[in-house]
């Protein structure tokens, strides 16, 4: 398949691997964080680490939309479905995230809540049109990848004057999260990061420019990379070069899709419908100023938070769950005592075990044989 198979080619991969191995300095290590769950998934699914030299260590970042959503927001969504009896439309990954009191959207659905899995925000709008007697709420989550689609349904709902549709907005912003990771105290157990593999799909929307301020401020190189394994390997090679040469620039490996300015129409639609929240709680990162979006006043009647008087209550992490430290890149999945025993994809305790982009799910589903090899 074009644009896919050539980016998974074993011969090309060996070529890049040889060059990376040739360029790394034997006397130092390279610790790179792949911000996105899409990269985490690609690294695990294709066994990219098997092709990288031992000096290069990939640290998984918080860029998994389902993983960073705090439990309190899922509780809010469940309350919408169970108490307000709305038709709640949600992306599939969110269904299985454990909420307070051993609930989840999937369990709420089994208990009679009207929860519908949708593939696109526009499906939620369609459901609202088809069921004018029902109150339909779209549970909007995700980074700048999914935000433009939500912006478009808000604009369409306004244009059509839909009275039974609203959006529970949980959209978050990537650059603020990367800055928060660099600001967070990492401790002796987790040495500093040497650079970032920057987001693929998010960058298609926002462009590469928004990463420039903190690459300069924190002196960290960023290489934006596509979600295919060869993209990741090429980005690692570019990061190694920047580190070796003492540079800290924003470079773009994903030139087939990402420009410096991004997608102007998507950016305009987001700016028209959303504004930054003063602060938002992230799982693992805590409250991060200016890191999320809320719906502008003009669209207030489509804002589920206003419409149903949603009050956010923070919920403590489950006991023993290391999702927070894992999302900050301070721990790896197998450092968690619950990993693979109490917490599995079938019975996830933390959100990182739910989404296939979560670090724990990726390690469990694709990479855990390496733990066995280490202890053997």
């Amino acid at each position, binding site marked *: *398949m074009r644009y*896919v*198979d050539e980016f*998974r*080619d*074993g011969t090309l*991969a*060996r070529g890049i*691997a040889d060059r990376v191995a040739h360029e790394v300095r034997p006397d130092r290590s390279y610790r790179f964080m792949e911000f*996105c*769950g*899409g990269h985490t*998934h690609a690294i*695990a*699914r*294709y*066994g*990219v*680490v*098997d*092709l990288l030299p031992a000096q290069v260590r990939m640290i998984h970042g918080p860029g*998994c*939309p*389902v993983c960073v959503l705090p439990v309190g927001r899922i509780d809010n969504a469940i309350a919408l479905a169970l108490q307000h009896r709305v038709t709640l439309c949600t*992306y*599939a*990954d969110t*269904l*299985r995230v454990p909420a307070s009191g051993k609930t989840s959207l999937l369990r709420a659905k089994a208990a009679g809540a009207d929860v519908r*899995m*949708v*593939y696109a925000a526009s*499906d939620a709008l369609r459901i609202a049109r088809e069921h004018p007697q029902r109150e339909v709420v779209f549970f909007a*989550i*995700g*980074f700048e*990848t*999914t935000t433009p689609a939500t912006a478009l349904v808000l604009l369409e709902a306004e244009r059509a004057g839909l009275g039974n549709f609203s959006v529970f907005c949980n959209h978050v912003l990537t650059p603020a999260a990367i800055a928060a990771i660099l600001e967070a105290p990492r401790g002796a157990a987790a040495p500093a990061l040497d650079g970032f593999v920057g987001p693929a*799909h998010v960058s298609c929307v926002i462009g590469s420019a928004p990463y420039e301020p903190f690459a300069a401020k924190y002196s960290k190189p960023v290489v934006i990379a596509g979600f295919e*394994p*060869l993209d990741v390997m090429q980005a690692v090679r570019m990061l190694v070069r920047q580190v070796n040469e003492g540079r800290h620039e924003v470079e773009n490996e994903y030139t087939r899709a990402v420009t410096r300015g991004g997608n102007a129409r998507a950016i305009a639609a987001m700016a028209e419908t959303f504004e930054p929240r003063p602060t938002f709680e992230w799982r693992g990162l805590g409250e991060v100023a200016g890191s999320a979006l809320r719906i502008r006043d003009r669209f207030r009647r489509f804002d589920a938070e206003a419409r149903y008087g949603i009050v956010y209550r923070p919920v403590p992490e489950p006991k023993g769950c290391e999702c927070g430290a894992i999302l900050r890149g301070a721990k790896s999945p197998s450092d968690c005592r619950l990993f693979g025993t109490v917490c599995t*994809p*079938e019975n996830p305790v933390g959100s990182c075990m739910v*989404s*296939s*982009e979560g670090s724990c*799910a990726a390690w*469990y*589903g*694709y*990479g*855990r*044989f390496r733990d*066995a090899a280490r202890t053997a």
Partner: protein
Amino acid sequence: MNAREKAYVRPVDFRDGRVDMSHGAGGRAMAQLVDELFLAALDNPWLRKLNDQACFAPPAGRLVITTDSHVVTPLVFAGGDIGSLSVHGTINDVAMAGARPLYLTAGFILEEGFPLGELRRIVESMAAASREAGVPVVAGDTKVVEKGKGDGVFITTTGVGVVPDGVEISAERARPGDAVLVSGTLGDHGVAILSKRANLDFETPIRSDTAALHGLVAAMVEAAPAIRCLRDPTRGGLAATLNEFAQASGAGFRIRERALPIKPEVHAACEFLGLDPLNVANEGKLVAVCAPDDAAKLLAAMRAHPLGRDAALIGEVVEDPQRFVQMETRLGGWRIVDWLTGEQLPRIC
């Protein structure tokens, strides 16, 4: 004389009629439906007796019995429907013991309001699949549930077969060094079904691979009577079958992504839905494990059969106390091939 002739009964209205509660109530309406639909389509000497059971003399060898319920949505899909699927699925479960399937039984759960015309098409498709396979449906049952308590039609089929002496096919028999083979392209059925699901509905030329595999199995058993394991990778796909073999045998499995036969269209659909073709269901494929010395002749026998044309040697059994199924990726790295978690759901990002 006329009085002795059967009085006129208005035939079942297959054009506009719908299933109602009387069709399962045991009265005349049910008898008429059995007569005009099930008996007419599936006709054979056992059904014609209208007994509550079928009697037959057990042949030589060991008897095999299996049962399978079919609840597929949509009921009709490219390449088949719930009727043919319910015949093929159970024949295949019997055949995977190396057995020759002999007889089937079928239980129908019908939802009130289901169009009788659609039911007839399904039963006729079932009859055609049964005739083609040479395995008659010798007993059956029909129940009707109230509207909203079913999903159109559910079909449970039970199959009986016989394994020749000397054939010992079972999941726990895989041992390190053995070869692992598949009979053809993976994921066709699951993608054909998913493409017709209500909120997906994408265009694809992919057809379900639903087929009865007992002929292929017979050819394989003849070529290599010492085959160790056979299984049809239905729900959960190849990944589930290999993990079942690994659990049962206490060994690990190593396969090569490059060796897996997958149609480009299936690969593309899985890419765009965020699915792993190794988790996607098949209904006309099998996975075989055999001693390394048998691999070449088994593969040749499979490829000589129309249902095994695309057969491939995909990997081998290894020693691994952890019983992992691992795969060398196209890229050259390694990963686990795990069981499917939850339902197959697309990723969002």
